[in-house]
């Protein structure tokens, strides 16, 4: 979950260092590396989102400004009909500014499970704070070693008892340099329900980042949501004042 939030809302400043060969990272470190990738001081990102469903295809351009992971503001730039729509995320809450009626609406609890902007990402996906390691028992099922052909970490996560998690199992894969590759979500019957993919790793001021993030729901054939970064700016400062309901209207 954190991956999505991170992908959408912030880009990592930390240079991901390759793991020294002599010290194998812990599961936590691998998972945190993926999280931390997007958990940064501040960032301004422009991206394109494509949503393909059996009924419609949507192409949007948006600008996301983030301060840490707690505060994010996404402004729709295109299409024209929706331009000016703003989503503000502060902690676990989401507000939408709707320019046509000049109104700010807090997304109510009952709609948090609903789709964000018609995509395969839910409002919940945007705010969920649960770190994998807190709700899940995680174990390595694959570790890159010298003799190993596949240079990846593969981590299996099974929800702990009494945690309110919809998934039965999650399998996350990261490259040897701990950049995320993909995450597979299984339901309680062990059926693959969704795949999140991280692709097109590019360099931004010495920071390596996957610039394309896709959600592929496995129960809806041919449907997907893809977000692609078109620019990443870690240098322009971001003020905390931006993330207020008053500021939303501007």
């Amino acid at each position: 979950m954190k991956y999505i939030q991170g992908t959408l809302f912030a880009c990592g400043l930390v240079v991901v260092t390759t793991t020294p060969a002599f010290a194998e990272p812990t599961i936590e470190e691998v998972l945190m590396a993926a999280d931390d990738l997007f958990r940064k001081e501040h960032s301004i990102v422009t991206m394109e989102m494509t949503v393909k469903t059996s009924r419609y295809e949507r192409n949007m351009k948006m600008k996301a400004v983030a301060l840490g992971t707690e505060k994010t503001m996404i402004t729709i730039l295109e299409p024209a009909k929706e331009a000016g729509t703003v989503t503000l995320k502060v902690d676990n809450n989401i507000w939408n500014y709707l320019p046509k009626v000049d109104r700010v609406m807090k997304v109510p609890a009952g709609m948090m499970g609903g789709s964000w902007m018609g995509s395969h990402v839910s409002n919940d996906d945007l705010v969920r704070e649960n770190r994998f390691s807190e709700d899940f028992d995680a174990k390595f099922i694959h570790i890159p070693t010298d003799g190993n052909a596949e240079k990846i970490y593969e981590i299996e996560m099974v929800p702990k008892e009494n945690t309110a998690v919809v998934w039965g199992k999650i399998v996350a894969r990261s490259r040897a340099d701990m950049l995320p590759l993909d995450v597979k979500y299984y339901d309680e019957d062990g059926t693959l329900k969704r795949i999140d993919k991280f692709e097109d790793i590019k360099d931004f001021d010495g920071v390596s980042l996957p610039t394309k993030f896709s959600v592929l729901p496995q129960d809806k054939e041919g449907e997907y949501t893809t977000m692609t970064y078109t620019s990443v700016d870690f240098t322009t400062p971001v003020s905390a004042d931006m993330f207020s309901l008053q500021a939303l209207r501007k």
Partner: protein
Amino acid sequence: MSFLFSIAWRNVLRNGKRTLITATAMAVSVAICIFLSVFTNQFYATFFDLLVTQQMGHIQIQNVDYAKSKALHDTIQEGDALIERLQSLDGTSGVSAKLYGNVLVSGAEDSAGAQVIGILPSAEETARGASSQIIEGTYLSDTPAKHAIAGVTLYEDLELKIGEELFVYTQAADGSMAYDLYNLVGVYKSGATMLDRGIQLHVSDLQDLLILPSQYHEILVTDKEVAHIEALQADITNLVSADSVGAKTWWETSPQTKEMMAFQEVSEVFFLGIIFFIAGFGVLNTMLMAVFERTREIGVMMALGLQRIKIVQVIVIESALLAALSSVIGLAMGGIINYYLSVQGIDLSGGTGEPLQMMGLNFDPTMYVAMQVESYWVPVMGLFVIAMGSSLWPAYRASNLNPVDAIRSE
């Protein structure tokens, strides 16, 4: 024959008091049956009118996937053209069309999830007098003006006020955010829980919001003649070109309603059966007494050479005369009751004067029963069958008397 008839008639008159008591009891049975019959007929006719004619429509046209999916995008395409063609069909007496959606509704104070229905205001008015359900403010006008009416439950829950702007938010069919402001012009109370928790807009306004131009989830057609629904269904099926759209009769859409209507007939027969069963014993008793009293007389007639079959005929004719007498009185009583109910009506509200709300339907507090002379003949027929049936045993007994023993009896 006329000779047997006159014997029978004389016997009927012989014990006038007993005849009158039996005839009155049977007449009351007839009157009760007439009352039950006209009451249940009227009740179910009202029920049919409220539920089927007004709400379900005789024929429902939907996207074939919609019944199961209830999905926003499973609509009837090019609905406006279809509606026009439906209106010009011969058998059609009314066409209404609806579009449904689930939205978030916000007033000044609070917000809630609600069902929104896009309606054709004048069609709803014609079909079910929708404006009479407005308890505050006004009904929707026929030109789309971004007006909304709210169900009374939602209105109270959200503490809405007439004239305020309702903010409506949802996801449109193309995946985009859909939202707009609608001026709340009225509040309706339908009695149906779901409806009273929702809002209604002019269907064009809702089509604009959901980006479903000229699309509907449901087109409801009412037939001029309830008996011709299947023929109209065939006409409509020919008219609808798209395979994705189907026309179903009300009983195909709601078999349980059909069953309920059939249950009415069964229960009516059941009650008539009970009443006539009791009335039958009265006749049986009367005729047995009559035979028992006249044992000597019957013996004499037999001794004089009257055939046994004629004895049977006399008793049966006697019964029939009794039934005829009872019918005349019963029909008069039943007719008076029916007339009274057609003028005064029956209070269904239990004295409160509030509409009776049952299964989301609003019955008028007073139900006026139509004069249903056509439903009188069933109780009368029943009476004759029972009276003559229950006279067979006494008749058989009489015909089997030994004339010699019979003459000697007291």
